[in-house]
């Protein structure tokens, strides 16, 4: 399912501190971990590399904003050893032809392994199923209409039923369009004060409730993307307790920011789903901590400068995130003690790998090396010129972060540092 440019495998040794404070020297020979030995002292943290289940590579169609080469290089710099790309491109990835061509390009260009999701519905129009069987055979990593909800409950039901054939996860963007219509930000005190069209959190949670009910009825698993609302977390927790096989992801920006950030009218605080209230954020952090939400996903959404250099209400939704996710969450969640480093590392690696049935990066003798070396002390400032991504629409521009990725090994190769 994952593809990467062909090539060599590296041999190297890495020194680092494992979470739990044991310092080790790891030997990698021709891409495989061959030895893990205790060692005296290291300050950098060594961990299984990260997996991002939600990336927009903008290819085909908007290669000016991101390519497979630039997006996977950005991911490598962010500590990732695998990413999944969304199908809302131009054309949409809803046919084996488009998928084959993307995978062929990735075999030439991808710096780290990348999987491609395909659309649930033809043209992501929400009307008829795409040829999910053929797409699955062609290597689709999962199915999603991300950017749009599957508005029809009947279509969602058919897609869940057909997942028995494809054996691939279904990932859902939960948004009730009749409630989110004309919304540019979370509906609440801030939207009332700013006069910006509001998007009630109910638009997400009501769809989460519906999608979970359909999944429960069909007894099929499903994955909920980029949750943003307390009500969604409550519904998910209840469904999981009732035995529904549901996983979910949350983005760094929803874990760190609230709608208060929109007061700046900076278009880089405009995302879909919108930044929620402090109560929403608290629920998301709690769900991440207790494992209700097992995945951190960046929803890396590159936009060109001219698309974002417009009044807030005219700007498209979305921000980049691959190169800042770890540092942002280390700075804003781990350093203040909201979650442990171990939890953060798990939700960025094992959690997403398990949710999507991808190989789980492990620090063990005999497995392909997928490792990240992290310096937790260094402070750095996020700048427009500092990205490998082709786009710089980051919500963190100008901010100082603590902790950074020093080296990334993906599929046995040093891809960063």
């Amino acid at each position, binding site marked *: 399912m994952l593809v990467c440019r062909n090539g060599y495998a590296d041999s190297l040794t890495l020194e680092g501190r494992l979470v739990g404070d044991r310092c080790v020297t790891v030997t990698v020979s021709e891409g495989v971990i061959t030895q893990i030995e205790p060692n005296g002292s290291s300050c950098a943290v060594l961990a299984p590399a990260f997996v991002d289940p939600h990336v927009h590579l903008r290819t085909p169609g908007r290669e000016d904003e991101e390519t497979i080469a630039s997006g996977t290089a950005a991911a490598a710099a962010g500590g990732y050893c695998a990413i999944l790309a969304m199908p809302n491109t131009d054309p949409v990835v809803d046919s084996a032809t488009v998928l084959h061509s993307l995978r062929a390009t990735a075999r030439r260009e991808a710096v780290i392994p990348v999987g491609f999701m395909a659309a649930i519905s033809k043209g992501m129009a929400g009307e008829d199923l795409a040829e999910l069987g053929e797409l699955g055979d062609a290597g689709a990593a999962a199915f999603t209409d991300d950017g749009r909800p599957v508005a029809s409950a009947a279509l969602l039901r058919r897609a869940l039923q057909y997942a028995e054939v494809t054996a691939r996860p279904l990932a859902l963007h939960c948004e009730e369009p009749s409630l989110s*219509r*004309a919304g*540019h930000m979370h*509906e*609440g*005190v*801030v*939207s*009332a*004060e*700013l*006069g*910006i*069209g*509001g998007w009630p959190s109910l638009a997400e949670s009501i769809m989460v409730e519906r999608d979970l009910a359909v999944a429960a009825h069909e007894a099929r698993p499903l994955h909920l993307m980029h949750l943003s609302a307390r009500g969604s977390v409550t519904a998910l927790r209840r469904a999981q307790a009732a035995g529904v096989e549901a996983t979910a992801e949350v983005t760094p920006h929803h874990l760190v920011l609230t709608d208060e950030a929109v*007061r*700046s*009218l900076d*278009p880089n605080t405009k995302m879909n789903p919108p930044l929620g209230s402090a109560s929403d954020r608290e629920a998301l952090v709690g769900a991440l901590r207790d494992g209700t939400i097992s995945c951190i996903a960046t929803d890396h959404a590159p936009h060109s400068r*001219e698309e974002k*250099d*417009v*009044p*807030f*209400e*005219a*700007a498209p939704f979305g921000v980049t995130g691959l190169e800042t996710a770890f540092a942002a969450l280390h700075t804003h969640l781990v350093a203040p003690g909201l979650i442990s480093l171990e939890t953060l590392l798990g939700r960025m690696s094992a959690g997403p790998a398990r949710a999507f049935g991808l190989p789980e990066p492990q620090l063990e003798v005999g497995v392909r090396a997928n490792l990240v070396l992290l310096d937790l002390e260094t402070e750095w400032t996020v700048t427009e010129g500092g990205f490998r991504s082709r786009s710089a629409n980051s919500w963190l521009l100008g901010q100082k972060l603590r902790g950074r990725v020093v080296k990334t090994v993906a599929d046995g190769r040093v891809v960063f540092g």
Partner: protein
Amino acid sequence: MRDPRHLLSIADLDRAGVERILETARALDGVPPENRPAKLPTLAGRLVITLFYESSTRTSSGFELAARRLSADTMAIRSAGSSVDKGESLKDTVLTLAAYEPAAIVVRHPQVGAARLAAAYGGATVVNAGDGAHQHPTQALLDLYTIQTTFGQTVFGRFEGLHVAIVGDVLHSRVARSLVQALGLVGARVTLVGPPALVPRGLESPGCERSTEISAIEPADIVYVLRMQKERMLAGANYVPSLREYTARWGITPERLRPGQKVMHPGPINRGVELDARVADSSDSLVVEQVRSGLVVRMAVLHDLLAQGVPAGEIAAVA
């Protein structure tokens, strides 16, 4: 956040700033017409550009005349007939106009955040003349000035104890947002009244209540009527069942007013919708006074932003 170079929001001002502008306007207004020179020299040789992406009568004419009365050169750009028609972005239009080195750019635009963008790229002082449903700060200032003029310096000169009911489509109203902030700054009490979906929750504060009953206007000294913004009503949005039902429940008629209650409206009025024609034309209507105030207050705002060294007293002395 507060940047004294611009007036993007009432939030850019503190109470002292509001009072300073009102005093400057009072000084400009205090000269009897026969002693008034045609123009004050304050902004001689400086350029004030008005950049309007939405139709406007009061605000655009008010700013242009205000700038001219202060001897500024003025240039009016309208989106219709300009390069905006050819798809030029707001950013490029602002950069183009900035090449003329204007002292100020007055911007009106249908989208929230437009004035902020102009301030980021224009190099000039930016006055927000309305951005979407966000802010229209000079309207709020001229409304305060009108209230001050009407109720006299002695009784409500400092606004404490004054009660204003703002009635109608608060949700889509930049006027309401600026006015609620401005009235809060000077210590007046506000009641927001209208259909549930058009009076958003979240604006309430100790000095600002919310009601969906029209009877809530009864104790107010001033009933401030907002326009039903039909052009902002998406088809099928169903904020109210119909305009007819709106008028029946929330329209301001003579029967719903106490004797002596003053009525204000930012214009343009939809007569017979939010405001009964008999009220609009009555002696309790301050609508024409609001327009008159608009000129001196916009002069005061330009003076405050571009020539703050000169105290208000000297303006009168020059006059």
